[in-house]
């Protein structure tokens, strides 16, 4: 069932660029990344593209296929008609480095700013005991392959560059939720989600959930419960008083 597909691939750098047309062979069972690789091997050896595993496990080959944020390795060619023109462009929320490769350092910076897991001091390695139903919630979030498609699609970042300073995006708000729901984490993370990472900017339009290749229910299972916890803390007068006093003394 091989055929010649029409592709338009964005080529360029931080300053300038345009869509370039290619006609290229497609074979049965192939994905967009196969076609990009064929363009590279036959027509454009310097075509820049990030990829690692080609199996949907590493989250490197994120791009926009016909304007939709996708992993190129998991986008099958049989989801298009042979006569369709397939347009592949870099993620829009991040600065372009070259061709399909973008500068995603924003995400690594945000990752550094989330305080890591802190277990109970009195438990030695080997003494951790947790029930499956208690770890399952955080385990869902730890399926994240850090493709950053949720970050790319979130309109708080995508349409408002200036928000990047104060908003960590769905991936890292989910990371805070993951730690908050970890049965043995000892850090209180509700204030930090709201005050340091901009949870309030999220207005739960679920765009992040829609593009997640791991099918994590980011909005329903991480962001909304986190918002509820923050509200509980903020509007419980006893807790409010307690945390205020604690913060003053420290």
């Amino acid at each position, binding site marked *: 069932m091989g055929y010649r597909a029409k592709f338009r691939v964005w080529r360029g750098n931080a300053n300038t660029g345009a869509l370039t047309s290619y006609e290229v062979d497609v074979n049965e069972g192939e994905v967009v990344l196969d076609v990009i690789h064929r363009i590279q091997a036959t027509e454009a050896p*310097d075509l820049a593209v990030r990829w690692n595993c080609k199996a949907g496990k590493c989250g490197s080959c994120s791009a926009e296929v016909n304007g939709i944020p996708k992993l190129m390795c*998991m986008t099958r060619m049989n989801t298009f008609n042979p006569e369709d023109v397939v347009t592949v462009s870099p993620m829009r929320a991040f600065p372009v480095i070259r061709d399909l490769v973008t500068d995603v350092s924003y995400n690594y910076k945000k990752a550094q700013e989330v305080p890591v*897991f802190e277990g109970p001091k009195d438990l030695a390695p080997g003494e951790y005991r947790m029930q499956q139903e208690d770890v399952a919630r955080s385990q869902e979030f730890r399926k994240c392959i850090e493709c950053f498609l949720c970050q790319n699609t979130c309109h708080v970042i995508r349409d408002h560059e200036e928000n990047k300073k104060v908003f960590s995006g769905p991936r890292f708000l989910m990371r805070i939720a993951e730690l908050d729901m970890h049965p043995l984490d000892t850090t209180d993370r509700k204030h930090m989600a709201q005050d340091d990472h901009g949870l309030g900017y999220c207005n739960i339009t679920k765009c992040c959930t829609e593009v997640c290749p791991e099918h994590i229910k980011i909005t329903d299972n991480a962001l909304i419960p986190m918002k509820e916890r923050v509200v509980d803390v903020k509007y419980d007068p006893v807790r409010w008083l307690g945390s205020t006093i604690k913060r003053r003394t420290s």
Partner: protein
Amino acid sequence: MERHSYDVVIIGAGGAGMRAAIEAREAGLSVALVSKSMFGKAHTVMAEGGIAAAMANMNSNDGWQVHFRDTMRGSKFHNNWRMAQLHAQESPMRVWELETYGALFDRTKEGKISQRNFGGHEYPRLAHVGDRTGLELIRTLQQRIVGLQQKDKKEFGEYEAKLRVFQECTITELMKDDSGVIAGAFGYWRETGDPIVFDAAAVVLATGGLGKSFKVTSNSWEGTGDGVGLALRAGGTLIDMEFVQFHPTGMVWPLSVKGILVTESVRGEGGVLTNSEGRRFMFDYIPDVFRDKYADTEAEADGWYTDPDNNRRPPELLPRDEVARAINSEVKAGRGSPHGGVFLDVSKRLDAETIKRRLPAMYHQFKELADVDITKEPMEVGPTCHYVMGGIEVEPETTATVGVPGLFAAGEVAAGMHGANRLGGNSLSDLLVFGKRAGAGAAAYINSLSTRPKLSDAAVKIAEQKTFAPLANGGNENPYTIHQELQQVMNDLVGIIRIGTELQDALTKLAELKVRMGKVGVAGGKEYNPGWHLVLDLENMHLVSTSIAKSAITREESRGGHTRDDFQEMDPKWRNKNVACFMADGDVQVKLKDLPMLPADLAALFEQSELKKYLSEEEYAQLPKEVA
């Protein structure tokens, strides 16, 4: 030119590199962690089944001695016994440590870490998270590194004051001082193409595997054998390069995903292998050395899943080399599946919900890439190049490479731990155990130095010229084409079944490719240019391929991941011989080295009848009386 000074430079940010970085930083060193991919994307992420560690959470009979025994058997008694011992003893603590970093493994009813069955392991031993254990391991270590950076920020004001990750940065040469000790490394930034120089008193190689020299492989693009190439050129020794693991179950269809891994957990959870005649053919392939440990009827094999104490294991769970060869034979005999594999079916043993819970990644992989619903129908699978047991020769305790002071190696790039064949689950534990040892080894080495080695300008100049030379080449050979041809040669002539004459052909073809590699052209500039990157990687892939082919010609027997059609038997005379590769006169040379002999206390862990199957008569006669 951008230049940095660190105590230690760690090349590779997969499991071994990250664990080494953690250890080195905790020992007080300043650390550069250099990764040619983005941070958190390394090939470790693709590990599925689990981490082998004798925590004895599922069966109290398990212990390091049992794990050690299984590892020795799996390796056909060809590994370095001391590495296997350290690995078996230390892996439980390395797994428990991960929990203190925040890892969330699947749990037992008592709230301990759950452990699953795997090929060659006597008891359920693999700590896991569904079938995405590698991702959990990578993310946990990555987050631990961030944690150490957060600590440094508190103390020194900057996250990267003492531990910095250099991502999308490729090291092309190791550099030594005038006395021959490691003094630094040279590389380039993938994004800009700009050069970067590291002054360092020690270097840890943790570059992983080399599967990209083969056409059908489960490896991601990074598996180009960089560490093997770097070590060879720096004067290091490789051993066991002929032992390449073909994982029995890779996807075979569609072609574009051929080789992608299908986790051994499918068989661990009860999946059976059948041929086109519907026969569970693995019963026909139980080798003599394992005959007393595996079921010989389907009834007994099926009974093992619920009553392991009174039934022997199903032969689907034989070590990987045995299963891969069996599948290869079935397909060659014309009993394969429509797309040239065999059938692997878990749908008859488990209900759909259980499959989706225990094997979620496999469910999605087949559904999304092949339109196959594994809860209802069998998968088609066949062997895929997965892992190399061989690599850089190291000292077991410190992972110091033999012959190059200041150079350490851990994880897949190092050799000795897995001998002729690696057991599933033993690689994640390997990279934790020896990654930690590499970090500690580098720290001890640096502390023992009275003066720091000094990098000469001349050494930097040579490395720079070599790295950037391809950009000025005006040749007309296409590097992508040469890479494909190299992969085809390795697949066809140095693959799962080898013959002396074909191996000679492979060397001839490799020599021809070498000539053509000198004529490659690079289009475009130095900014994020995959064509140029591939030219540099090709040199390493060519060295790797040559080393494998030369080692394979030398070993005239069949053992583990090395099968010779012209020498089909395992020969006890070869058991204690390592084929070693080194560079001389500009080419890979081969010599034989003796393996250290198993000491009496460890030999006593085996029945004498079993040792007799592996040891030569002279070796057997030398064993102390109480053992023999």
